[in-house]
């Protein structure tokens, strides 16, 4: 059967029209094909919590003790090399924590102060949005930005996505041997370590919060430097404090809506 030029063009044109109006547009429409586009995160359950934290830097605290409590509990290795270090909670100077808010004539106290930083457990987490395997996800019942180490493929998109540098990649095996972590600390046998090639971060002590306990860093404070609570509950301690104290958050301009508030 021969087909002439005129018939061929007719069929081709018709196919194009069908493709564009029917199936073609269907494919272009935002939907399930997007890995995790904005607005596709599961909606928070009604009555859901949003855990948050108030970091009151005006209080005298042994901040180092908070770091140690966390890192001992969660088997976070101590690696001196800045490029390979793993940190869940750490300290940084003002200009690193609140870039853009520093002034040329900052007080000496501010210049010297080391601020406590950890994962912000954002209401709109960029890391969750970019994770291709949904290894990082936001728990719908309490807003903790959680990691499923079983799913992490180590692509480090989340590290690029996180505006706060709250994520660390395991460049090397975090264990020295069966019982010791890199850096020489003993492994806590009640908690897993991570393996080479996955990203890790603070989980707001999900395992403790699920048992009704406070996160380890909060428990390590003595003078109320860290307050943990439900931001969605107007009667919670943290909300009462937020009502009376002036607080700032890290990089509010990036629109991730962080859940960590600072009294600087």
């Amino acid at each position, binding site marked *: 059967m021969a087909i002439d030029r005129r018939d061929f063009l007719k069929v081709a044109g018709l196919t194009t029209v069908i493709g564009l109006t029917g199936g073609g547009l269907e494919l272009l429409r935002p939907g399930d094909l997007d890995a995790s586009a904005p607005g596709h995160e599961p909606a928070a359950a009604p009555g859901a919590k949003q855990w948050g934290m108030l970091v009151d830097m005006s209080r005298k605290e042994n901040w180092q003790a908070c770091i140690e409590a966390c890192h001992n509990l969660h088997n976070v290795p101590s690696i001196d090399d800045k490029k390979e270090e793993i940190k869940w909670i750490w300290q940084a100077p003002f200009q690193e924590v609140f870039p853009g808010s520093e002034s040329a004539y900052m007080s000496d106290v501010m210049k010297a102060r080391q601020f406590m930083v950890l994962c912000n457990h954002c209401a709109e987490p960029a890391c969750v949005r970019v994770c291709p395997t949904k290894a990082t996800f936001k*728990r719908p019942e309490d807003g903790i930005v959680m990691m499923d180490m079983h799913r992490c493929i180590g692509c480090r998109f989340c590290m690029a996505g996180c505006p706060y540098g709250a994520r660390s990649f395991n460049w090397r095996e975090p264990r020295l041997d069966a019982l010791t972590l890199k850096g020489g600390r003993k492994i806590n046998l009640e*908690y897993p*370590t991570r393996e080479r090639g996955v990203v890790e971060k603070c989980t707001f002590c999900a395992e403790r919060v699920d048992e009704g306990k406070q996160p380890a860093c909060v428990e390590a404070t003595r003078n109320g430097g860290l307050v943990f609570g439900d931001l969605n509950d107007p009667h919670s301690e943290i909300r009462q404090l937020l009502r009376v104290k002036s607080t700032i958050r890290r990089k509010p301009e990036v629109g991730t809506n962080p859940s960590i508030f600072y009294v600087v």
Partner: protein
Amino acid sequence: MYNTGKVLTGLVLFVGFITYPFWGGEASPVPKLQKPEKEKQCIEPVAFMRAQHMQMLDDWRNDVVRQATRKYTAVDGKQHNMSLQNTCMKCHTSKKEFCDKCHTYAGVSPFCWTCHVPPKETT
């Protein structure tokens, strides 16, 4: 056909060789696993655990990490904390004498222990 004798003998030898594991000798003995001293009964019946523990651990990890459910209700109604390190390994105190023995026998190498920490081996 050339060399019928040689070809047939070769074939018989070859078939015999590759099927040897099925007819020759005895199957290697089923490994004896170290049983917990304190507990008589695992959280589910032995037959179920033997056949399904891998599926169960898989479900547990999803429940704990993704659903934030940490309690498992066994068939007998008892509740257990869903944790490899803090539930399973508190009774089965030796990875070498329990997990590894059977996994080696079955020729499987699960990657639980690249992250999870086995209990301190006493031997």
